[in-house]
């Protein structure tokens, strides 16, 4: 099976403080990978390095076999990478459909069209409605994002990522701040993500995350300290020591 993501010797320091130290990781295409670790372990930094939000000090990042460490964020997205953010970053004044349209435009050459009114692009809005339907938000498609609940915003984020039909999806704490009911909804949604999309997820809610993950990577002080199958990592003494507790 081919690799969706291959990281070798990735390092990043802020001043003298190493946030990611010599991280190596290989994620198979179609895999569900969970990244865990205590606060400050470097999980989000690792995501930011993969997406290109941060420039690596050293190391290599290969996306679908292509070296991406020198590529800009938007170029990596065009290779098939999509992500959600730990803190929701959407467009609150716009409708849910418009938020998804911005996502659809990201991979479309029509984003450079400065003459044709966007409102006339019925095809884009129909696709946006269809994508929102997959996350159960079709009825709210024309509502301003500011008027929907936090859990619905999380679903919009995922809809925006899925709208791009990515090959690799990075989910940064998608369940953070959600109620029990919202978690269940999102859990169902995550389980329904097609298998041709590789998913790498950071999550602290271990009950949900463990049921989702096939393989787990434990980060501590920016280093990979345990990696393996769900059972292997959970049973590993280092996991209990630094993350799960006794």
């Amino acid at each position, binding site marked *: 099976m081919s690799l969706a993501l291959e990281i070798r010797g990735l390092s990043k320091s802020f001043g003298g403080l190493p946030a990611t130290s010599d991280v190596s990781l290989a994620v198979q295409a179609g895999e569900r990978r969970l990244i865990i670790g205590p606060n400050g372990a470097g999980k989000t930094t690792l995501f930011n390095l993969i997406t290109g939000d941060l420039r690596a000090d050293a190391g290599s990042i290969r996306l679908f076999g292509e070296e991406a460490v020198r590529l800009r964020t938007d170029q990596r997205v065009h290779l098939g990478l999509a992500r959600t953010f730990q803190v929701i970053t959407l467009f609150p004044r716009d409708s849910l459909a418009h938020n998804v349209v*911005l996502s659809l435009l990201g*991979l479309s050459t029509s984003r450079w069209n400065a003459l044709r009114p*966007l409102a006339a692009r019925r095809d884009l809005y129909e696709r946006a409605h269809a994508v929102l339907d997959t996350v159960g938000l079709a009825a709210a498609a024309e509502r301003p994002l500011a008027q929907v609940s936090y859990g619905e915003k999380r679903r919009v984020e995922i809809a925006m990522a899925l709208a791009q039909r990515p090959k690799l999806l990075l989910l940064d704490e998608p369940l953070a701040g959600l109620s029990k009911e919202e978690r269940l909804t999102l859990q169902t949604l995550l389980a329904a993500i097609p298998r041709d999309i590789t998913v790498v997820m950071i999550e602290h809610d271990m009950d949900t995350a463990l049921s989702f993950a096939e393989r787990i990577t434990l980060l501590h002080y920016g280093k990979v300290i345990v990696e393996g199958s769900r059972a292997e990592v959970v049973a590993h003494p280092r996991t209990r020591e630094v993350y799960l507790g006794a």
Partner: protein
Amino acid sequence: MNRSALFTLATAAAALAALPFVAGDYYINLASQILIAAVFALSLNLLVGYGGLTSLGHAAYMGVSAYLSGWLYLKLGLGHLIAAPLALAGTTLMAALFGLIALRASGISFLMITLALGQVLWGLAFRWVSVTNGDNGLSGLTRPMPFGIDLDGATAFYFFTLVISVASTACIAALAHSAFGAVLRGARDQPRRMLALGHNVWLVRYLTFVSAGFWAAVSGLLYVYYHKFIHPQALGLTNSAEVLLMVIAGGSGTLVGPVVGAAIVVLLKNYVSAFVERWTMLLGFVFLAIVLFMPDGLVPGLKRLWLRFYGRRA
């Protein structure tokens, strides 16, 4: 476009077309100045309102276009038909170069770079006497004669300005409502998210910067045709601050706002200054009142008030 917007547009078009038949030359010239300032403000609005990039050097593009046109006409003896596109092309090229420098930063640093670049050109206009005539400016310029129509009269020039202004506004409106415009606003509000969606935020901003330079150049041509004279003051900081005031006071990020802002500033500058000696102080008070009571500008503020009033009655 809904019915009320169409009605407003038709009324505005009729009023603009009828103005020369009901007003004297003074008011017609005043209207021409407002139209020129409106194009200038709309060009800056692309950067400030839609792009979230506040520039304090935008007069540079207006001034350079005016200087280029005047210089090509006076020194090289080129006709307006050739001088105008050359001035537009030269200024747009300069915007393309300045954009590479200015867009290395954003926020306050962007503002400072644009201010510095504008001041460099202002200094050049003052000191490069062999080209610009220094503090004396370039005088002895003429207005073009499109299709043999003499534009020396106030009415003819007003209609010429009106046609160019309407065409410029239509193009800027098209950009604002297009996919590119939506991406530009997205890059203003959430640049990191837009990158994560595959948008090249830098390129979007750069193209907008160049486009803003082009439309400022168009207003520069109208400016030099109107005044038949160009002075270093045209590309100075005061002019850059004034156009920024127009955009902010009227309502940045809206199409009508900068036009209203342009009208306020031009009317205060030309009309009120005839009666009030310290008109700049009055301008300051007007700006202060707008910022205090309608921080997002006059047009969005009045719209909100109207909706509140209308909503209560409905």
